């Protein structure tokens, strides 16, 4: 089962920014790439630094700690020391809310 979980308010993530949210016990980052929202695991798969602290450039997020790079649309590790991909999630803005689709454990 999966369900849409409210993590924040619509419009909360400005264009070109990445923000961290909690969805239950998951830490999720949401990036705004020219109006398109992309949700992914907040913690880098290399050494668990917060990717919300990282640099978003186009659809690539670069970890501020050690330079791991991920494609925010697929979660794929595309550069730097990280090997494992990030989990990615569907995200939408609806009824003034920012919502992420998460699997129930």
């Amino acid at each position: 089962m999966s369900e849409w979980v409210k993590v924040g308010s619509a419009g909360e993530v400005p264009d070109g920014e990445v923000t961290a949210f909690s969805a239950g016990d998951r830490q999720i980052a949401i990036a705004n790439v020219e109006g398109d929202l992309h949700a992914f695991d907040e913690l880098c798969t290399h050494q668990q630094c917060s990717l919300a602290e990282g640099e978003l450039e186009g659809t690539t997020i670069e970890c501020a700690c050690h330079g791991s790079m991920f494609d925010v649309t697929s979660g794929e590790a595309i550069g730097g020391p990280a090997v494992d991909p990030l989990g990615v999630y569907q995200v939408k803005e609806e009824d003034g809310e920012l919502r992420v689709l998460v699997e129930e454990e």
Partner: protein
Amino acid sequence: MTTFVVVGAGEAGGTAAATLREEGFDGEIVLIGAEPMAPYERPPLSKEYLRGESDHVFVRPPEWYGEHAIRTRFGTRAERVNVEDSVVELEGGERVPYDQVVIATGSRNRRPPIPGLELPGVFDLRFAPNADAIKEAAENATKAVLVGMGFIGAEVTASLRQLGLEATVIEATSTPMERVLGPELGGAIAALHRDHGVEMIFNDGAERFEGDGRFEAMVTREGRRIEGDFAVVGVGVEPVTEVAGDGVPVDNGIPVDATLRTAVENVWAVGDVARHDHPVFGPIRVEHFDNALKMGERVAKNMLGAGAVFDDAHWFWSDQYDAKIEMAGFATQWDDMVVRGSIEDRSFSAFLLKDGQLLSTFSMNRKFDVRRSMPLISARLRPEREQLADPELDLRTLRPPKE
């Protein structure tokens, strides 16, 4: 079947072998390393791992190599790359033939001829077992003596202070990393350690280590006697080039062209051992993690025919206490420094220039400036001093337009 051999299984060698497979090479890959462990990251050894906060971080999971049909010979020293026969000669006499080979043998710690250096309780740090030994010594100790305040020495000092030990450091110059950073930035690092209770002695060096069967004290050239429970010596590294034999030229490392190829057509070199003909900096040997990783990736692609120049601006980080330090580029003879932010408040970036050209950027607790400046360094830009000094100016806006 075509066989590619990688000699040396650290960050550069492990990444090269893995990238060859990930890029679709379907021939045989042999990864040879003197260490018994699968390739692991060394940066944590002076930081999180030393403090017991993390376990080893592997370049790829140890089982990954077998799963991807990479033949590994860990715990085996390669003695020579024999370019006449195109074979790698291993200790014990085994010969591994290759079509192409990468030398990624890295560097080893300098061992200066200081009497008492071999005493138990005098450590240095390069490999995982070195970190284990220091960690174990720190468990029952109250005071450490450190020789050398380069980045490794400074990180070990910080970690030992964080573990609650007293620390005295001796450094030959008048500030830490003075040759690279100059006195002002070196002074910022000294201030950081002073505020964390480190006793620092500058312009002095270790004359000898004393102890009855085990380290008890260091005597300095100026005649100081500094007691402690153990000592850690960190005075730089030298490239491990013996494997080049007489077939591959050696000159402060193994010279490679801009594409990482040695003077021998099917022999490449990467990582600490490679003296790379860098398009911006000229011939340079770099001893940093990120360079090892990126060279490993690049050489694999070039072995498969990409033929691309390696022009990375070089980047590293150093975590000391709660300070995040980063540096990119390379500048030995800069003539101008522009600072944005405040050195005193430990939130600043310093841009090192020569004849107006940005060569290197150093930062403390300003997370984006260093990496944003790398494309500017690679493009040999001459930014305005006012632009560099403006903390609000996003360095990405200075990038040359893409072709």
